[in-house]
């Protein structure tokens, strides 16, 4: 009888350990996934900020050099593609941090994707002649850095 009791205790203990390890592993996997997505997002935010500021700081005149015209076109391509990646990573991050702890961060991340698109690709974007717009550069920098703080917070909570 004692042997049977001991056997059941061992089975229950093993099962409990298995369940604990399983959930611990799941949590770790989720944290890893959040951390890697947030890290990638941070990198693309930096790229977007750099390219957008360079684009809007330049003064593209009708008679600007062919080299500057080519640089402008390349920047437009880089901005458009990095916006797309930022949008995809933001959506991905939002889908894996769906819990109460990050409620406000999710809202801020969602709004950011839409606002930065309007800011970076608005007004004279892709026109031939674009006067430099340092006020816009400043807004781009403030908004991207604001969201980077949130991304870093998410990263730090999932190291």
């Amino acid at each position, binding site marked *: 009888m004692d042997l049977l009791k001991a056997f059941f205790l061992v089975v229950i203990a093993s099962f409990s350990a298995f369940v604990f390890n399983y959930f611990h592993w799941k949590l770790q996997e989720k944290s890893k996934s959040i951390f890697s997505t947030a890290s990638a997002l941070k990198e693309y935010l930096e790229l977007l900020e750099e390219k957008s500021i360079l684009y809007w700081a330049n003064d593209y005149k009708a008679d600007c050099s062919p080299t500057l015209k080519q640089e402008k076109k390349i920047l437009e391509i880089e901005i458009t593609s990095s916006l797309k990646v930022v949008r995809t990573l933001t959506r991905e991050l939002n889908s894996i941090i769906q819990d109460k702890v990050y409620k406000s961060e999710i809202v801020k991340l969602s709004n950011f994707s839409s606002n930065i698109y309007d800011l970076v690709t608005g*007004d004279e*974007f892709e026109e031939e002649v674009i006067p430099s717009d340092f006020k816009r550069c400043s807004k781009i920098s403030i908004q991207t850095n604001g969201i980077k703080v949130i991304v870093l917070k998410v990263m730090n909570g999932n190291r």
Partner: protein
Amino acid sequence: MNIDFDIGEQFSKDPTGRFYNEYKGTKMKNNLSSGEAFREEKLRGLLNNLNANQKINFILDNDVEAYGSSFLVEGFAGIVKYGYMEADSMLGKIKFTYTDQDFEFYENKIKQYIKEAKFNCKEYESTKDE
């Protein structure tokens, strides 16, 4: 029966910019892939020729990689801004399809720009250099 309009196929694979030519009278060429060109040469005609229950179904992602907000605002919301049609009426006449789910973002932005546009707040003056 609704009308399909494939932007990449029937307008431009690279829809870019806002105006034909903001600096007309100079040596600069007209941008025939601009939002203004899309609105004036395609969208207005399509909307005007619709029957009562017809809608235009825009195919957004066939051979088009992305849209800038300058193009979308001028191309779609310009219809409301220049008084060609009111926002609610326009929204009831257009729909969108795409296979790439990322283009749902552009659908939402187009609808947002149309809703935000003020009806007939500006008189249209073409920037096209004839």
